[in-house]
């Protein structure tokens, strides 16, 4: 797969030249603010973070997987050597930074000083990326982002065609479904994970059904519709900024009220929290309010804009997978549980849960990183598999594509006997469709 070269950075592995120490030092210097300096100096090496990390727990408490060890061996070492590192060192870092951490931020909650280890890992990823060291799976998506603005490399024509197709298809089930493209001044601008239109456009169709029944004023933008941000996980800050800014700019251009995100974890982290900083917005607030699907669906159910047919609630025991970036890092864990109360009859919470729930192991870029990392992903996912098994649930509901994929894989690997569902599909199946939205009945019967 050809790698695209940009001035000063090379995407993709295979770059074999010497490390550009000057560039490394520039990045280290840019990160050497009060927080990073203090965190690196203050870590008392107390070891409390270890118990919080699912990598550590899944690998029989291997001390080399404690968060403090991981950041000291990478970013700590980079600063200690004042950036004078060699390629072999960076390759070892690559293994730790991407192979042993999903930046789930659980460790920050367990550190007495509240050291934000995920930020330290991200800074180190930036250094590795600048020297062309990044997992191949992420690198190939970066090419797509640069060329088409979305990680799947989907063209505008293909995208609009998919929207039209889904509008037609769902029009058979719900009357009056449209997927308006580029509608100025709409209340919500819906952005999605390109894996949806690319592989499973039914997601878009289902959302259209829900929004139609809820009577929402919405639109889909023809560009800037990708809310994911894999450059953020690859360590390519400038590209990450560009990607999220494209979405903000389109929302501002269309003059929409809010940006609605699909059920995706890191999209929320990117759009609502890291995005403004990546895009260079000084006050750190997104220019347009960001709403995650979980919040919107909760509001619809709470306000009765969508009503669930009690007969269609899920009867089998069901549990809720808290995506790190929606629950812990997004604050939406109660909303997720309230939705579960509307949709299921037998809800079993995991232990621990809410913001203390463990990462499934698929985030931080892990799933896109591909088959080479699958073994590790399955090994570290043992913690999540055990949690699921303990609940006795047959259904796992999760509003995140990476959790979705990871739990499906864990299901096969650990024989959990569960099926995974997104919130959209349950709502679509179970919602009461008011009279006016039912498709027109054929008047003539078969003769």
């Amino acid at each position, binding site marked *: 797969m050809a790698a695209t070269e940009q001035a000063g950075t090379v995407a993709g592995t295979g770059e074999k030249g010497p490390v550009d120490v000057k560039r490394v030092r520039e990045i280290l210097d*840019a990160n*050497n*603010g*009060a*927080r990073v*300096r*203090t*965190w690196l*100096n*203050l*870590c*008392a*090496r*107390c*070891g*409390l973070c*270890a*118990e*919080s990390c699912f990598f*550590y727990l899944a690998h029989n*408490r291997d*001390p*080399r997987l*404690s968060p*403090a*060890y991981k950041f*000291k061996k990478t970013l700590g070492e980079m600063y200690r050597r004042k950036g004078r590192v060699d390629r072999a060192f960076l390759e070892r870092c690559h293994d730790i930074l991407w192979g042993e951490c999903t930046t789930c*931020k659980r460790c*920050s*909650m*367990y*550190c*007495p*000083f*509240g*050291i*934000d280890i995920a930020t330290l890992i991200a800074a180190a990823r930036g250094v590795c990326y600048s020297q062309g060291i990044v997992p191949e799976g992420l690198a190939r998506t970066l090419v797509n982002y640069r060329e088409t603005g979305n990680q799947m490399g989907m063209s505008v024509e293909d995208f609009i065609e998919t929207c039209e197709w889904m509008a037609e298809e769902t029009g058979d089930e719900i009357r009056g479904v449209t997927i308006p493209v580029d509608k100025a001044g709409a209340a919500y601008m819906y952005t999605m994970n390109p894996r949806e239109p690319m592989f499973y456009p039914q997601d878009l169709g289902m959302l259209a059904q829900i929004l139609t029944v809820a009577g929402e004023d919405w639109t889909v933008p023809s560009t800037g519709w990708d809310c994911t941000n894999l450059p953020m996980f690859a360590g390519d800050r400038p590209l990450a900024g560009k990607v999220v800014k494209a979405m903000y700019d389109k929302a501002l251009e269309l003059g929409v009220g809010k940006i609605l995100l699909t059920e995706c974890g890191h999209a929320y982290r990117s759009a609502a*929290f890291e995005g403004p*900083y990546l895009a260079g917005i*000084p*006050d*750190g*607030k997104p220019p347009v309010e960001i709403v995650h699907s979980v919040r919107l669906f909760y509001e619809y159910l709470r306000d009765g804009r969508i009503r669930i047919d009690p007969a269609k609630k899920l009867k089998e025991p069901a549990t809720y997978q808290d995506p790190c970036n929606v629950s*812990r*890092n*997004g*604050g939406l864990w109660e909303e997720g549980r309230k939705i579960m109360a509307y949709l299921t009859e037998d809800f079993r919470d995991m232990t*621990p849960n809410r*913001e*203390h729930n463990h990462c499934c192991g698929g985030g931080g870029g892990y799933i896109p990183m591909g088959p080479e990392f699958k073994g590790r992903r399955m090994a570290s996912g043992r913690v999540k598999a055990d949690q699921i098994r303990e609940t006795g649930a047959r259904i796992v509901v999760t509003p995140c594509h990476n959790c979705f994929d990871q739990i499906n894989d864990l299901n096969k690997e650990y024989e959990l006997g569960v099926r995974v569902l997104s919130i959209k599909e349950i709502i679509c199946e179970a919602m009461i469709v008011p009279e006016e939205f039912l498709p027109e009945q054929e008047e003539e019967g078969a003769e």
Partner: protein
Amino acid sequence: MNSLYLFLTGPGVWISFFVFFGGFIGRLAFLYGLSLERDRIVYNHASPAWGIKSIGHWLLPWGSASMRLQPVFTAAFFLFHLTLLAVPLFFSGHNILWDEAFHWSLWSMPDGWADALTVVFLLSAAFLLARRLARPEVRILTTAGDYALLVLTTLPFLTGFMAVHHWGPYEAVMILHLLSSEILLILIPFTKLGHVALFFFTRAFIGFEMGSRRGARAW
């Protein structure tokens, strides 16, 4: 020896306190200046309520999930810190000196308490040292500096206790007491012991970052 003793009880005290306070002021001022330029994220989402909650939960024993996971360690570390602060501040021997020098001092605890608390301190320090050696996830991180600082921190207490009870050659013990305390004071602002002040800042920040921005609890 005498001149050393005089130095340590005279200029030594001044120098060490000067470096202690000056060092902190300098370090905090430097970090503050740096943060205005590179850490605007701290100020953009600052919220006193979340900062206080974040700090408060970690100032109370077992106030955070992390502490509850290791309750014995938490007990030891609270005892360590409480006695670390209580004894030097409220020991009658120190307060007499303050009173003589500045006609002002803090409340003094009964000497029996000071003795007991010093013993508690030394036991908890021993526990922390043992933990560092015994737990693999702590041992792998621990550097020579960590051991040295821990030992250095216990020396003032050990030597102070010895001096009060006249164990060993008094002047030598006192010199060790003064030397270790003064070196400790000088080192505090520049090492991980800077958490004396910086704990509050880093905790406040994570309180803003997780709490104010996301409603998540950082404890």
